[in-house]
Every structure is written in structure tokens, then in C-alpha cells.
């Protein structure tokens, strides 16, 4: 049966690991949002010098595994003198990865705002940038919050991969404690519990955000 005593005994380790997982998630989330927004705007730009690099980025990230991306950054980049700490290697890989998916989500949201909205704004003398900022993005936001939320939840779960580059987050914590307790079921269960806690918290927060972004009630 479940050995509750090891669970209670080792829960402080998991709590500490959950904080690290949360830190990695939140920083990657913010950087990934910036990457996603910039990439989406570039993909939609008429200038091919903006469009093609952004398309390449999205294609490259979406067609390769996150684990390989992580290894290239952590093990591969030092070959060229770019020696990032495990923490920042992890954050960079996760942010680049989620950013590509965010870019597609944001692009879709922007494109689903009716063309008439842009025409109305431009006919009032608003510049393209002003139209994007004041008219299109606020409307796109309402549409993209739910799918962005999915990307966030995936991001939190994907942080488990940084256990492979010595970051003692939830998954590696479980693995290490198994070495001394020989209780893999309890230890992985604890890790799973904290992941569920984090993802559920994120989902609830996003639900709140979603209802705040709804402006019309007809």
C-alpha cells in the first residue's frame, strides 16, 4: 500500500522543487509570450525580411522535439562559446518552444478579426500600428486567451524535460529521492500531484482572465 510516511517526510523537498518549476514556467511564459507576439506580427508583416525569418523560426521549432532543442542549447551552444547555466538554458529552450506555438495562436487570433474593423479604423486616419494596438489586438486577445491557456499548461508540464540538464525541479527531485527511498510510486505520485496543482492553478487564473476580457453580453 501507499507509504504515507515517506510522502510526508519528503514533501518539503517537493515543495522546494515546485517553486523552481514555477519560476521556470513563469519566466518562460513571459518570454515566450513576447517571442510569440513578435513572431506573429512578423509573419503577418508584408516585408519578407521580417516574414521569412519568423516563418522559419516557427517551422523549425514545431518540427523538432523540445528535448533535442534543449540539448542543442545546453550541450551544443558551449561549442561556440555560448555557455548558459542550466537554468537559463532551460528557460531559453522552453520560451523558444512555447513562443513558436504562441505565434501561431496569436496569428490566428489577429487574422480572425474582421477586415471591416481595420478598414473602419484606417478610414478614421488611424495608422497601421495604432489600428493593431487599439483595435485589432484587444479583439484578438479575447479569442486567443483560451488557446494560449492551453499552451501555458503544456509549458508547465514540459518543464519536466529540464530535469535532464541537472535542474532539480519536480521530476529530478522525484528521481533522486527514489535513489534513497526505493519508493518510485510514491515519489512520482508526489511529482504528479504538484504538477497538477500548478496546472490547475494556471487554468483557474486563465478562466478569470477570460471572463474579464469578455466585453459584450449579447
Amino acid at each position, binding site marked *: 500500500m501507499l507509504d504515507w510516511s515517506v510522502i510526508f517526510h519528503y514533501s518539503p523537498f517537493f515543495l522546494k522543487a515546485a517553486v523552481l518549476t514555477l519560476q521556470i514556467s513563469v519566466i518562460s511564459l513571459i518570454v515566450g509570450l513576447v517571442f510569440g507576439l513578435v513572431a506573429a506580427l512578423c509573419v503577418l508583416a508584408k516585408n519578407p525580411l521580417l516574414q521569412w525569418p519568423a516563418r522559419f523560426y516557427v517551422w523549425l521549432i514545431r518540427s523538432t522535439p523540445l528535448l533535442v532543442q534543449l540539448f542543442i542549447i545546453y550541450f551544443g551552444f558551449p561549442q561556440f562559446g555560448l555557455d548558459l547555466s542550466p537554468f537559463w538554458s532551460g528557460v531559453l529552450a522552453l520560451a523558444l518552444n512555447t513562443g513558436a506555438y504562441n505565434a501561431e495562436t496569436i496569428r490566428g487570433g489577429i487574422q480572425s478579426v*474582421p477586415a*471591416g*474593423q481595420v*478598414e*473602419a*479604423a*484606417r*478610414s*478614421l*486616419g*488611424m*495608422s*497601421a500600428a*495604432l489600428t493593431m494596438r*487599439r*483595435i485589432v489586438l*484587444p*479583439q484578438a486577445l*479575447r479569442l486567443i486567451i483560451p488557446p494560449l491557456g492551453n499552451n501555458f499548461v503544456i509549458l508547465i508540464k514540459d518543464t519536466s524535460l529540464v530535469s535532464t540538464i541537472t535542474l532539480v525541479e519536480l521530476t529530478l527531485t522525484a528521481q533522486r529521492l527514489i535513489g534513497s527511498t526505493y519508493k518510485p510510486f510514491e515519489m512520482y505520485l508526489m511529482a504528479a500531484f504538484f504538477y497538477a496543482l500548478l496546472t490547475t492553478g494556471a487554468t483557474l487564473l486563465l478562466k478569470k482572465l477570460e471572463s474579464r476580457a469578455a*466585453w*459584450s*453580453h*449579447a
Partner: protein
Amino acid sequence: MKTTEEKTHPMIDIRGLRKCFGALEVLKGIDLQVAESEVLVLIGPSGSGKSTLLRCLNHLETPTSGEISINGERVNRTDLSARAFQRHLNRVRTHMGMVFQHFNLFPHKTVLENITEAPVQVLRQTREDARRTALELLERVGLLDKCDEYPARLSGGQKQRVAIARALAMQPSVMLFDEVTSALDPELVGDVLRVMEDLARDGMTMIVVTHEMGFAQRVADRVVFMADGDICEQGTPERIFNDPQQERTQKFLGDVL
């Protein structure tokens, strides 16, 4: 904008305007002048190029060739860099208010915010000034009580009157109306047309694309009948409606009246 000296140019001056979508020539060299305070009504079968002509005026469509000037100022200048041309367009567009068939109100902003958005963001008016003007305009279109509603709560006719107020808030020299009653329930058309008639009486220069022949007869100074991307016939409403010369015009009016 307006000077005391005698005007030597029409309010709108269109010369040799052509517009092609791929191989399709939608406007085949339009020449048209509109005087200050004139109400010009464009009629014609769908696909005749009326809306495209209107949208070329404020460069929502890029003309293939030809010249368009408003109040003596060339709209589609070719002597500017891409950036400078965009700035030029943004400024010229503030002189032309446009109202669309499908309203295109901003759904995430209240009625008042819809109207004050461009005056504040583009003309750099203070919020208080923009708000005062907006409330005056809302009173004029009979919707003062709706100022804090979101567009989704309004009927089509109310939305269209807000759209007119939004365009007027920029204090344009010309108003362009693109089939503004076509998407409305019949009983809501009257309120919108009344607002437009008021505007015409106040001396606004207007170009109106419409299928409302009653409005054309009552309000137009001049009716232009378009067919196949060209002006087929034009004249006073009395002349066009009572004594059309061209066969195309006779057939069209026979079909719609």
C-alpha cells in the same frame, strides 16, 4: 480648411480613375467632380463599381491609375516614400468620413469610446473635448441615452447612426456612405436616412452609394448612374428618374422602381 477666397477647385476631383482586380477592370476611367456641399448619389446594378469608386477615394482600395484630389489636395500621391505616403494618407483620410454597410463599430468599446477613439488618438484632442463633441453628435443622431452601451446591445439602425457620429467626430469635409441601409431591417432604414438628410441640409458634401431611390429623389443634388465600371448617365434626380436617356438607365430604373 475653408478659406474666404473663392474656391477654384471642386471638393472632390476624380480624373481617369481606373481600378483592376487582376484581369478584371472594375473602374474604366472615371471622371467625376463633386462641388462643396453637393450631395451626389451613386446608383447602379451590383458589380457596377460604385463601392469600389467610393473606396478608392480614401484609398481603402489602391487605384490602378488616375488622379484623386480632395479639396485641392492629391490623395494618391506618387512622389512620396512608402512611409511618408502612409502618413499623408492617414492625414488625408481624416478629411473623409466613411460609413460602411456593416457598420464596423468597435465591439470592445462603448458607443462613446467608439466616437472618441480617433479624435483622441489621431487628432490628439483631450478626452474632455472629444467627449463633449461625441455627446453632441449622439444627441444629433438621437442616441444620447446609449452612450455607455456596447455595440452588441444596439439595433442595426442604432449602430449605423453611431457609425455616422463616429465619422462626423473627425469633422470631415466629405462624407462617404457605402450602402449604409442595405443591411438594415426595413423599419430601421428611416431613422438612418433622416440623419443623412439632416446632414445634407447642413451643407455637408456627401457621396452616397445606395439602393434607396426615394432618398436619391428627395436629397440628391445630382444622381450618377454607373454600369460596368463606367458612368453611364448623370443629372438632376428629376431628369434621371423621369427622363432617363440611356437604355441601361431605363432598364435599371424599370427593375428597381
